[in-house]
C-alpha cells in the first residue's frame, strides 16, 4: 500500500507561544477514510493546515511520498483539498461559479477544462444551477456543499475536512455524510461528531494536547467509554 500522508515528530507553536502540536505522528494510506477526533484545542485544525503546507512546523510531513517544501507546494496543494470549517471563510468570490473555478484557474488550466470541472464539481455536490448565485444568499448547508465543490474542482487525491457537519441541521448533516461517503478519494475528517465519523471512517485517531493518543478501528475506539471520557469526548448515546 502507498502512503498518502506521513507525519512524524511534528511540533508547532503559534506566534503567541501556545504549543498546538507536540510530537504528532500518524500515517494515512491511500484510499483510507480516517476520522480525527478530540476536544477543542487538541490541534486538529492546526494539523490539517500542516498537511497542505499552510503552516510549517518542525518535523516530517510527507504527502504522497513528497516532503512539503517551497518547490512543490503548488503541486501538493492541487493534490490535497482542504475544506475549512466555516464556509464563509472559504467562499470569498462574488459568485458560486467564480469560487468553484478559483482552484482550477490558479492551476492554470485552459478555460474549457475549467468550465467542465466546475460543472462536474457542482454536479457531484448536487448544486447544479447555482453557478450565478451569490454566496450570502445561500443557506449554511448549501454553502458547505459549495465549499466542498470548490475543492473537488481541483480533483484532489486527498480530501481534508474540518468539522464538515458543524452548524448543520439533521437533514443537512445526513445529506453531507452521504455525499462524502460517495467521494472516491482519501479522506481525513477532523470532528467532534462521533456519529458522522462512525458512518464515514473505518479508522479513527484521537488527538489530545497536540498529539495522537489513540489510533485504531472506529468501532473499537468509540465504544471505549473511559478512553473517550479521558479526552473530553462523549460516547454516542
Amino acid at each position: 500500500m502507498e502512503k498518502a500522508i506521513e507525519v512524524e515528530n511534528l511540533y508547532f507553536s503559534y506566534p503567541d507561544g501556545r504549543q498546538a502540536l507536540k510530537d504528532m505522528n500518524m500515517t494515512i494510506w491511500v484510499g483510507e477514510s480516517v476520522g480525527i477526533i478530540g476536544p477543542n484545542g487538541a490541534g486538529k485544525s492546526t494539523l490539517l493546515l500542516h498537511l497542505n503546507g499552510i503552516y510549517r512546523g518542525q518535523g516530517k510531513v510527507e504527502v504522497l511520498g513528497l516532503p512539503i517544501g517551497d518547490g512543490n507546494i503548488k503541486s501538493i496543494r492541487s493534490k490535497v483539498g482542504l475544506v475549512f470549517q466555516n464556509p464563509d471563510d472559504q467562499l470569498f468570490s462574488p459568485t458560486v461559479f467564480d469560487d468553484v473555478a478559483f482552484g482550477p484557474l490558479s492551476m492554470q488550466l485552459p478555460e474549457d477544462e475549467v468550465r467542465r470541472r466546475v460543472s462536474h464539481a457542482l454536479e457531484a455536490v448536487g448544486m447544479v444551477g447555482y453557478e450565478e448565485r451569490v454566496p450570502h444568499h445561500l443557506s449554511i448547508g448549501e454553502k458547505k456543499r459549495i465549499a466542498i465543490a470548490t475543492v473537488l474542482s481541483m480533483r484532489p487525491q486527498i480530501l481534508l475536512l474540518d468539522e464538515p457537519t458543524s452548524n448543520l441541521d439533521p437533514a443537512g448533516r445526513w445529506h453531507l455524510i452521504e455525499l462524502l461517503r460517495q467521494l472516491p478519494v482519501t479522506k481525513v475528517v477532523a470532528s467532534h461528531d462521533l456519529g458522522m465519523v462512525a458512518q464515514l471512517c473505518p479508522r479513527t485517531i484521537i488527538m489530545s494536547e497536540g498529539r495522537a493518543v489513540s489510533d485504531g478501528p472506529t468501532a473499537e475506539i468509540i465504544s471505549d467509554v473511559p478512553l473517550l471520557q479521558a479526552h473530553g469526548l462523549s460516547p454516542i448515546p
Partner: protein
Amino acid sequence: MEYQLTDKYGDLDSLLHRLDPRTKILTTVAFVLLVVATPPSRWQGYALCFILVASLALLSRLPLTFILKRSLVIIPFVLVIAIFIPFFKPASPGDTVFSLGIWLWNLSVTKSGLLTLFGVVTKAWLSVLSMILLSTTAKFSDLVKGLDKLGVPKVMVMTLSFSYRYLFVIVDELTRMRQARDSRNFGGRWWWQMRSIGNMIGTLFIRSFERSERVYQAMAARGYEGEIVTLSHLRLQPIDMYFGCLFISCLILIGLFSFLIA
C-alpha cells in the same frame, strides 16, 4: 440573513439590463463627465441631461420611486459640504441677495454663490441618478468583472469584490452581537451604552482581522499566489455598439447645445 443592497433589481429584463457592464460603465462615466463640465449658468444643459437619464430610467423598468428615494440619500451629504458656498463668494456690488449682521461679522449671500450651490447640488444629483442606474441594472459580480476587463487595477477590483462579499457577513456578525448585548441590557446610563458600543466595534475589528487570515489560508490552500484569475462570460453584442454610439451622440449634442446656445 438576506440583504438586497444592489441585487434586488439585477435580474429584471430590459434594454439596460441586457447591455454589457462595460458599455454601461463607460457611458455612465461619460455622462458624469458631461454633467460635471456643464457650468451652473447653463441650466438648460442640466435639463437635457435630466431628460436623458430619466428616459433611461423609464427604459430600465426599475420602480421610479425606488430610484428617486435612493437618489435623495446623497442630498444631505452634498448640502453639508455645499451650504457654505453662497457665503464665501466675494460680494460684489449688485450681486448681494441679503446680508446677515451677526455681531462683528457681516455675512452676505451672493447671487453667484447661490448659483454655484445650485450647480453643485444638481450635478451631484444627476450623477447619482446615473450611478444608481448603473449599479441596479447589473449584478454586482458582473460590474466587478466589467471593471476588471476595462483594465482597472487588480487591487481595486479585488478590494471591491471582497468588500461586497464580506459586507453582509460582517453586518450579520454585528447584528448577532447587538442581539446578544440587548438580551443582557437592562438600560444603563448613556456612557455605559457608549462603552459597550466601543467594545463591539473593537471586537468586530478583531474578528474581521482574524477572518481575513482564514480567508487568505483558504485561498492559499487552493493555489493562490498573488493574482486572482476569473473567467468571464461577458460578450459585447451589436446592441452595445448601437447603444454606446447613440448615447455618446446624445451627450455630444447636449454638450454642444449648452455651450453654444445659452
